[in-house]
């Protein structure tokens, strides 16, 4: 098959960068498998328990960049107990022992310890990039180790992690010789930092493009930082509070005008709305605006700001912008591709900040919309049908009606038809989250139309096993299915067991699946790990087969049962 020497083929493979394509290439023939594996530098592992680090290292000796994901998605919402797993330590230990020259590590929903971070920082001389998303288990001491020991660090990106903050000195641990920083994001840290160290660090980092500060960085420091780093492309403001008549504020206004490279703006963890006008000059160039952590801004402030953002492509905002505000977005942001509207007060039924009206306005005004996350108090079928007519490019559509089983308030009907319209007209849909009152019908539609669907999240929906079966039978590309509080049981679970080998994982909690069915599934499918999470006081697992399982998580794996499971997890 090979008309070219290996080096040539390898060179060709250099142009193939997506993981999917690389995986396909490796399956063509033995020769290509070999060439591919030696030339592979970036590996993505969606479930850290599907393979062991040893096998990874054995196959890809040239590994430079590793992405790992740990806990199931529903762990974000407290549905997975503490200590379930997802420990990165064995990975770092194994990589450290090997000859892998790791340069980049990206983790999501994993448990990271300070020791791991320290080992990481000392084991890989060329380590350049650490990205931690929704991780936990470490403190700022671990971060300090990274700062101190990674001499060529380019990227330290901490997103929404639970970090125990030991206040302080980690930032000062960047040696004076460290001038390579391109991206620094510590917005999720809660504690104090040495502001002078921060200023010096920024001053000696000419390549710094992305800087996201935490809430303790005050406005005058921000002003100093921007003066030293006018080349910033991505800025996350920590505290934005000052007296608009102060001298510091006027200096800031002047400095901001010089930062005409800024395309992405976020933060405002503390904000005085009257100071927002200083931002307007850079709004024109913004492509990403994230105000979802800025509860200090009211609807009016948000609307006024958004009116300046004509080039916006991605907007993350709180629902206090209101339907009217979304109307302003719709008429201003014609390039909008992604919209996320978060609830400012998820547990208060008081004022319905955004409803279906806002969504309809957006769909009408933003033809390029392809990704949506929308928390609202109500939704109607009519609105969804309209949205489906207006927007046919959705790749991600996540709608969360805060009352999980709410019907269409106008017609009292379930929202089956609305979601049906969405899947029918958006043929490229890859990710879908449902909410509201839903029957089996919506799943029929999904099975029929959502042919490219890869991830589906269901809660409080459906009437019977048929619902789940429609999805399993119809969605050929399904990779992740997560279900909670739905009346799906053994019949649906066991109908097509082979299907789960084509998927990454299945989560079912508070459904109607029995212990016996899980045992059957585990027995018949040795390539799956079927985990039962049982948090009740009784830890004996001599459970009756007829007993309903509270939480089940199953995933395909090449390496059998994991060794690090906690007591309350039963691996069948």
């Amino acid at each position, binding site marked *: 098959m090979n008309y070219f020497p290996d080096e040539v083929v390898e060179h060709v493979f250099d142009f193939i960068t997506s993981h999917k394509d690389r995986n396909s290439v490796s399956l063509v023939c033995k020769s290509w498998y070999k060439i591919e594996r030696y030339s592979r530098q970036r590996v993505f592992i969606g479930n850290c328990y599907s393979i062991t680090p040893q096998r990874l290292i054995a196959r890809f000796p040239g590994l430079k960049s590793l992405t790992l994901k740990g806990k199931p998605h529903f762990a*974000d*919402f*407290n*549905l997975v*107990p*503490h200590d379930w797993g997802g420990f990165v330590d064995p990975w770092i230990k194994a990589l450290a022992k090997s000859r892998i020259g790791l340069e980049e590590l990206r983790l999501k929903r994993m448990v990271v310890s300070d020791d791991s971070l320290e080992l990481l920082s000392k084991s890989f001389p060329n380590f350049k990039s650490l990205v931690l998303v*929704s991780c936990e288990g470490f403190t700022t001491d671990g971060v300090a180790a990274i700062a101190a020991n990674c001499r060529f660090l380019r990227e330290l990106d901490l997103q*929404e*992690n639970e970090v125990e903050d030991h206040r302080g000195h980690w930032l000062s641990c960047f040696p004076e010789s460290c001038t390579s920083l391109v991206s620094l994001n510590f917005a*999720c840290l809660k504690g104090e930092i040495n502001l002078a160290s921060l200023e010096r660090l920024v001053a000696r980092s000419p390549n710094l493009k992305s800087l996201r500060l935490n*809430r303790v960085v005050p406005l005058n420091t921000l002003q100093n930082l921007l003066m030293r780093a006018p080349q910033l492309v991505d800025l996350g403001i920590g505290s934005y509070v000052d007296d608009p008549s102060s001298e510091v504020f006027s200096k800031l206004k002047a400095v901001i005008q010089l930062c005409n490279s800024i395309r992405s703006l976020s933060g405002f*963890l503390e904000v005085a709305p009257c100071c927002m006008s200083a931002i307007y000059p850079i709004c024109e160039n913004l492509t990403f605006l994230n105000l*979802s*952590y800025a*509860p*200090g801004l009211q609807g009016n402030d948000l609307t006024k700001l958004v009116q300046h953002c004509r080039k916006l492509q991605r907007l993350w905002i709180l629902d206090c912008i209101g339907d009217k505000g979304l109307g302003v977005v719709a008429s201003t942001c014609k390039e909008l591709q992604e919209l996320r509207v*978060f609830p400012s*007060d*998820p*547990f208060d*039924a*008081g004022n319905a900040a955004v409803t279906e009206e806002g969504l309809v306005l957006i769909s009408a005004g933003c033809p390029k919309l392809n990704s949506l996350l929308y*928390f609202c108090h109500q939704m109607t079928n009519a609105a969804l049908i309209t949205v489906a007519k207006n927007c046919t490019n959705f790749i991600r559509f996540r709608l*969360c009606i*805060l*009352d*999980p*089983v709410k019907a*269409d*308030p106008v017609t*009292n*009907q379930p929202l089956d038809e609305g979601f049906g319209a969405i899947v029918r007209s958006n043929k490229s849909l890859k990710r879908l*989250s449902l909410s509201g*009152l839903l*029957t*089996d*019908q919506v799943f*029929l539609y999904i*099975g029929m139309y959502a042919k490219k669907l890869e991830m589906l*999240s269901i*809660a*409080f929906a459906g*009437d019977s096993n048929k619902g789940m079966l*429609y999805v399993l039978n*119809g969605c050929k590309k399904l990779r992740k299915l997560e279900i*909670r*509080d739905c*009346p799906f049981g053994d019949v649906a679970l066991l109908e097509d067991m082979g299907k789960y080998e084509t998927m990454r994982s299945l989560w079912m909690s*508070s459904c*109607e699946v*029995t212990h016996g069915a899980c045992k059957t599934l585990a027995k018949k499918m040795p390539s799956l790990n079927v985990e039962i999470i049982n*948090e*009740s*006081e*009784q830890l004996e697992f001599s459970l*009756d087969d*007829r*007993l*309903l399982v*509270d939480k089940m998580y199953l995933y395909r794996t090449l390496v059998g049962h994991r060794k690090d499971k906690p007591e309350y997890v039963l691996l069948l």
Partner: protein
Amino acid sequence: MSPLLLGVEEEGQSRVSSPSVECISQNGLGIREWNYLGLSDFCSVDSSGVPDDNGNNLNLKATELRLGLPGSQSPERETEHCFLNSGKLDEKTLFPLLPSKDGICSSSQKSVVTGNKRGFSEVKGTIYTEKKWMGHGAVPDSQSLQPVSHGKYSVAQASVKKDGPANLIQEQPCTSNGTKVNRTDISNNSSAPTANRAQVVGWPPIRSFRTKTLTTSSKNNDEVDGKPGPGTLFVKVSMDGAPYLRKVDLRMYSTYQELSSALEKMFSCFTLGQCGAHGTPGKESLSESKLKDLLHGSEYVLTYEDKDGDWMLVGDVPWEMFIETCRRLKIMKSADAIGLGK
């Protein structure tokens, strides 16, 4: 594909119309009940071992989960306006379900070993009612129900005024496993009760990091005792002589008076030596007023432990300051509380 299409043919008729038509419960309050096991009668599904006591508004027999005295009236509630709550359910939720720590609730349900544990004699419905929906007249059936999924819902007494408007939350005499979604109500409401959405674990699906951060930002509060959830501040309440402690969410109240009333109700059973069986309204008002006298009078004082570990008398500082510093509460006998000064 064909099986799927067949399915459409057969089921099209029955499924497209709202399934709620099929099993309307008999009580005529427009409640729709979902019975996922295909049994039409909601009562017949129940094999969860939760017996029903007719005439008793309790759905859950498990006494350790009961919130307090049934039939106790909340003095400050404007019951005529409060369609949400009958007098029966004015206990604040004391059992918010923690994701992994709620051993009490989950174990009591898991001890039921049957295939029908969940029953799905499930009452699908809103967890809360908004005043705005009242205006819609024919509110969908779903509005007035509590979803009864098993699992980590807090167990609130879901009793209801029998004569209330259709949108009252219906109690289910035969709920499968008796788990109800907790409906916390903010007692200090004016006539338009802004019903607090019940706290279902993991709902709405927002990353806990985000909710924690927003809570901190907007309430400007460093110490969010927030494991049960954002915007809640649960502290233990002990009472001298009581066999067990309770927990209250300080954020449910905005004045000392409200807190005091809530505690009165909660602990009245201990004070009067009645372990809150089935008090009749008459008895209740008597015991409550008696307890009030006790609390306001000389027999007991309410104290709290602050951040520094000192025991202080409740009531000296402004409410906001109090909830920021209060770690736990204690109802002490006056005799013991002499050192706290007053």
